[in-house]
């Protein structure tokens, strides 16, 4: 079911956390709300599920206006960051709780619980209590509980934050699988870009209560709309250099780069170069000295101080014979250079 948030405003007392936010999540789509801590992701999520009242704007599930509807009647499933399982109930009772409060018959509840526990693969744990489950198992229970009512929308608030690295990887594909299988419209709140990029159809990147860019992950990575987006997305992160656009991109340090095709701006700009687009595989062009090499197993992270000032990062396959202190002259993939105005907007 399509979810439409229009001119959504949220104030806590005097403080306006979110102002005039528009967001549409297509039916069956999984949307990521990505952004740094405190940008208003959870606030948006709580407004959508009805726990917080909206200070302004409207919210539609399909053609149903649910703006003022209490949480109980909204038909949303929520997986909370700490799972919020009921400690005094068994797994079965936890999953069945949304149906129990709707006075669904016992046999029907049992059937539905069986269906959901199959879906999230915890059929053998139904008699346990939450305290007797591992983090990943709790996660699955929370997911099953959120989905048992066949809600219009599934909301996930940092669902993977409490899991260890391996489990996180596993649950990432697991949640995606379940979302695909059920075709449910979902919103994933996260501050982890890898999560957002790997799990979601589209990403809404937020900053200070505003959506900076809304796009598919690849699109957002390749074509960020602002310096903030470019800087937030990508790991290892992009390097920014000041430059003057003229004939060439003059770095003001005696070095310069070729103008990327299609760049029209002149004068002071900021250019962004992702680490994979700077390296010996791109020929020569920038001179500098290797100041730091960070092996990461499959690849190595290399920090370079440029001749005349400025730092730039490169990522190379592991095993490249690069040592700190070494002088290098590496090239840049010119057509992948991103240029921004001084105020951060994309040029």
């Amino acid at each position, binding site marked *: 079911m399509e979810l439409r948030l229009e001119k959504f405003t949220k104030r806590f007392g005097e403080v306006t956390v979110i102002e005039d936010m528009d967001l549409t999540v297509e039916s069956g789509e999984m949307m990521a709300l990505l952004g740094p801590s405190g940008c208003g992701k959870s606030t948006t999520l709580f407004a959508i599920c009805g726990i917080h009242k909206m200070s302004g704007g409207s919210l539609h599930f399909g053609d149903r206006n649910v703006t003022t509807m209490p949480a109980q009647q909204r038909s949303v499933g929520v997986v*909370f960051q700490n799972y919020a399982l*009921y400690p005094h109930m068994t797994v079965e009772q936890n999953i069945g709780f949304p149906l129990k409060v709707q006075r669904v018959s016992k046999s029907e509840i049992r059937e539905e619980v069986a269906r959901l526990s199959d879906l999230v693969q915890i059929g053998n744990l139904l008699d346990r209590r939450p305290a007797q489950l591992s983090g990943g198992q709790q996660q699955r229970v929370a997911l099953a509980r959120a989905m048992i009512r066949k809600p219009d929308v599934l909301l996930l608030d940092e669902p993977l934050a409490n899991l260890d690295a391996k489990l996180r990887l596993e649950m990432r594909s697991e949640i995606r699988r379940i979302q695909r299988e059920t075709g449910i419209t979902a919103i994933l709140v996260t501050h982890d870009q890898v999560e957002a990029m790997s799990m979601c159809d589209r990403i809404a990147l937020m900053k200070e209560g505003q959506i900076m860019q809304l796009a598919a992950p690849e699109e957002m990575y390749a074509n960020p709309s602002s310096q903030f987006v470019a800087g937030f997305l990508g790991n290892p992160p992009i390097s920014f250099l000041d430059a003057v656009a003229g004939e060439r991109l003059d770095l003001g340090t005696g070095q310069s780069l070729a103008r990327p095709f299609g760049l029209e701006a002149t004068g002071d700009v900021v250019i962004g170069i992702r680490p994979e687009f700077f390296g010996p595989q791109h020929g020569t062009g920038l001179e500098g000295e290797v100041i730091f090499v960070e092996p990461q197993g499959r690849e190595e992270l290399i920090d370079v101080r440029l001749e005349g000032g400025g730092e730039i990062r490169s990522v190379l396959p592991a095993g490249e014979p690069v040592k700190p202190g070494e002088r290098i002259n590496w090239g840049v993939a010119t057509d992948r250079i991103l240029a921004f105005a001084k105020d951060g907007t994309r040029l």
Partner: protein
Amino acid sequence: MTSRTLGIGFLTPALVAVFIFFFLPVMLTVVFAFTNMSTSTGITDGDYRIIGDRLRNLSDAGVSQASIDKLEAAGYQITEAGLAALAEQFGEDTADELRDDFLGQSYAKRRDLERVLRSLDDPIRKTRDRKAAADLFAVSIINTRFDTEEEFRAALTSTGIDAGDHDALTRFAYTGWGWTRDNFRLLLELPSTLRYAANTAFYVLCTLSFNILFGLFLAISTFYLPAKLANTFRAIWFLPRILPPVLYVLMWNWFTWDTGFISTVTGWFGVPQQNWMMQTTTRAWTVIILINGFVGASLGMILFSSAIKAIPTSMLYASEVDGANRWQQVRYIILPQLRWPILFMTAYQTLSLLTSFEYILLATDGGPGRATEVWALAAYHTALNNYGGNLQYGLGAAYALVLVVIGIAASALYLRLFNFRELLIKPRIEQ
């Protein structure tokens, strides 16, 4: 200094306090419960005296009729002491004549002595006077005080009382306290015992239910109020607990007196003025349960409130998006997580209600009649404050001892219950 001795050092004040404020009173209660101490026996040693008024109780004490007769009619002897008294009342001459002729003479019956008195040269003429004069020479131990048992027994021997009755008489004559198990026999026999027990059970049950239920109601309802309002509300409900009991009960008295608040207000609607506390048993109980209930409920409210606050908000949010309405949230999420606070409150309040009587004492003092007399109050009345004036320390201590035993048993039970559960169940609420 080793850490062990240091530990004992730190513990000492606590141990001393436990000894002085718990162990010692309990031991004293045990000791007193096995005595017949009362106002009349005193709590120090007594003396030996057969009080004339109590002669007819002697046969109940197992003294033979012959000995009783002998005590009553021990005979008469002309002694200097008697003569001195005679001289004072009937003149020196009579006394001198009697001394000269009859000093040392004994008479079995008063009539014999009266005959002598009539036959004197200077006789006592009036029959009534003669009887009075004869009595001055009575050799009886009745109403005489003996400081030690030996003196008393010697007197019994000289009066010629059968040696078989000496023990019984000595026991009967002793005015001090002694060891006895009678208190407990009495407790079992007295019909009022059952009455007090029933009163206590009723009082504890009703007050406890009120405490818990009302405390829960307050905690849950204030939980859903805005924070500021909730705090004000809680502070108001907490007043009864911080108010001195005397003041608090005084306000209730003022509230329920014949000319008090309720009477005045109902008076406007033509209800005759009356005492809304003491008029009927039902009212007395209602008032007492409310007085104690409000105090207890405020404690429950605080405890339950903090327990509710300890429930992670996300869990409450979760229940809302799961579709639970307020009532279902209370029923399925909040109440189950209050199980331990509720159990604890029940345990704690049962114990304190069993032994507490100050509010009842101040409000109804057990009345009307003995309708609201609970066990602890009965102990107090028996031992320390009783209309008859004879305070029965021993019996009162026996009452108290029953409470001590019940209290210790219940505490032990609760302790086991709590520890046991704690071992079994890991903390369930995790953030």
